[in-house]
């Protein structure tokens, strides 16, 4: 082939590629790659694209990259004004960071009936809605029903339980059903089922705390101080982390660590390590993400679950969501808005859930999924009753706040610094990070 032939073939290929691209969908959605989220989004997009009223230029095309460093890459793309996607994934804890590069969206009143206001709030920043919630994460208290039942049926064990709680917590507690637990009960149970405290315990550890210097571990932890009335800042914007609530929760966690109620390696534990510990049968109870329910129940058939324990201010569970919002640099805002409005409808939410997604729904919507997804009924119930987002939890630096807390609090737990120093440092960091 001579040069002319090469050029001719190349031009033809380019023309074919261009015409094929023109026929492609015009709303590109950058989704959360892999796992049930991708499968659910694919199913929802298929339903949407099949609708007769969706024109060719507004059909949805999905784009998936990799979870590894996803949010870092997304940040760079958005900051660079990329038009490679019209709709992109956002998460509660990073909305503020991406808000300057995104378009707020006005959802219809029906969205509130589908998701409920608590869940919609996970996609809000500065009073504006930046996305449609697609998947919700919160925490469950997982516990061994067989161990609790045996404890409650044994008077000698109850007496021992009272002695241990008196010694470590200052009050003689009686075993209770996990649905009634306060954090004091959680701690007493953790101590009783630890062989370092109670050599007769059937399990080596009473609980497993995730104490690695990792921001997600702070999310697991902070339902604890919240139930004692803790918050990141007050309505006036003053940082309130140095509070009795945070101190109490941090001290209790450290007491459990020092007493050997959680593995000594807990300072390097995150989701996978904690699940492995519980699954081994050597842990009596733990607080973990709802996503672990299937794995933990499969490993330990006698696993029960409930919302995390209560404190003096009530029962709380951290919630955060993944969702989809509009890239400010989009070439097709109209198509993006149309897709997101449909995604906020009951039809889309139900289809998304049936395909494996985990949207947080109102009890009325979740009831329609009772047969297909009974777990979502529990998630939706806890989210609407106990879900919370800290003041500042969707701000531009929310992730960095979690990081700073992880550094300071894990340092205190591991004994590299005292509580006053940790509090002083985190107050200074959060004041800087959350200043208006």
């Amino acid at each position, binding site marked *: 082939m001579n040069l002319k032939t090469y050029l001719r073939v190349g031009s033809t290929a380019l023309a074919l590629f261009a015409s094929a691209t023109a026929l492609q969908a015009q709303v590109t959605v950058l989704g959360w790659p892999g796992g049930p989220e991708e499968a659910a989004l694919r199913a929802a997009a298929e339903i949407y694209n099949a609708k007769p009223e969706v024109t060719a230029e507004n059909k949805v095309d999905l784009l998936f990259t990799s979870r590894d460093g996803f949010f870092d890459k997304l940040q760079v793309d958005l900051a660079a004004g990329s038009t490679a996607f019209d709709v992109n994934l956002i998460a509660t804890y990073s909305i503020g960071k991406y808000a300057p590069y995104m378009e707020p969206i006005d959802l219809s009143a029906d969205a509130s009936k589908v998701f409920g206001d608590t869940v919609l709030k996970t996609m809000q920043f500065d009073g504006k809605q930046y996305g449609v919630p697609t998947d919700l994460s919160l925490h469950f208290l997982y516990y061994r029903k067989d161990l609790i039942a045996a404890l409650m049926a044994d008077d000698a064990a109850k007496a021992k339980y009272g002695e241990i709680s008196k010694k470590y917590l200052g009050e003689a507690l009686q075993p209770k059903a996990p649905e009634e637990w306060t954090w004091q009960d959680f701690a007493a149970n953790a101590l009783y089922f630890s062989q370092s405290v109670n050599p007769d315990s059937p399990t080596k550890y009473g609980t497993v705390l995730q104490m690695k210097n990792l921001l997600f571990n702070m999310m697991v932890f902070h339902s604890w101080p919240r139930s004692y009335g803790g918050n990141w800042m007050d309505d006036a914007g003053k940082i309130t982390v140095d509070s009795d609530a945070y101190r109490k929760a941090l001290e209790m966690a450290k007491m459990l660590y020092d007493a050997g109620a959680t593995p000594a*390696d807990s300072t390097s534990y995150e989701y996978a390590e904690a699940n492995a510990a519980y699954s081994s049968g050597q842990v009596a109870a733990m607080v973990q993400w709802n996503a672990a329910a299937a794995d933990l129940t499969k490993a330990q058939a006698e696993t029960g679950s409930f919302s995390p324990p209560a404190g003096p201010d009530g029962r709380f569970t951290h919630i955060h969501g993944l969702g989809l919002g509009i890239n400010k640099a989009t070439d097709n805002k109209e198509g993006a808005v149309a897709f997101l409005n449909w995604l906020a409808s009951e039809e889309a939410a139900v289809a998304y859930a049936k395909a494996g997604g985990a949207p947080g729904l109102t009890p009325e919507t979740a009831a329609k999924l009772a047969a297909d997804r009974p777990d979502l009924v529990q998630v939706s119930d806890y989210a609407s009753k106990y879900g919370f987002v800290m003041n500042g939890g969707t701000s531009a630096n929310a992730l960095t706040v979690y990081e700073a807390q992880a550094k300071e609090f894990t340092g205190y737990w591991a004994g590299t610094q005292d509580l006053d120093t940790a509090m002083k440092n985190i107050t200074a960091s959060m004041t800087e990070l959350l200043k208006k």
Partner: protein
Amino acid sequence: MKPKSSIENAVLASPLVIFLLAMLGFPVVLSVIYGFSEARFETIASPTFNGLANFRQVVADPAFWQASWFSLRFGVTTALLQCALGLFLAVYLAPLVRRHAWIVAILIIPMVVAPAMVGLMYRLVLHEFVGPLPYYLNLIFGSSPSFLNIANVFKTVVIVETLQWTPFAFLLFLTAYEAIPKEMREAAAVDGTRPWRMFWRIEFPLMFPTLFAAFFVRFIDGFRVFDNIYTLVGPGPGGSTTSLSIYIYETFLRRGEIGKAMAAAILLFISAFLLLALAQQMMRRRG
């Protein structure tokens, strides 16, 4: 062959030069610009010059010094251990390797594994409930240490790094050991020199330049460690396993302080450069 003209040489070399300038020069220049600018992701396209402010922030940050101290301790400890072990293995295994050269291929396998994978692998191997090492220690001794708690984590990451990179030192020392002329050893043996004395008085001095180079290469590598520590334990409780590279990564991507991260990277580069220059000068003086 007749040498080409300088113009011809320049033309032929230009693609490579242009490629290197684009791939290495451009990011370096950009890093230096950001190092002297107020730059965050929001202002990445329009950084504003702020002089030495980022450098002042970095040197005033206790976390930077904590990371520097960790990197220094880690670099020196691992380089010493790898060189000592590598030297021992090279001398001890040399007769065996002479007969069975394929042993070298087996011994250098750890070097071939990506450091990030090594970190992940040990995360599994050392886990109290699923790891084989705690399992067998429990089985044999009735208990197992907590490898990753605050008391042991430094030792653990040092051992992991040493196990992976000792083969590198071993390979260098083996080459240097085998390069010592046979006649020297034979002459010393004829004079009645004992093996231990032969090692200290003849072989070790001849291998010293290699030892010196290996130590510095391993020190620099240890000083800028990232992958295996990050995947094994992350920054550590209270930042206790944060190396300078982890500090830079977290400052850049997690906290979005691009200017500050670049300033720290420039300081890391300068310190590594000075150390290497110093090492080179010492070698030259000795030579």
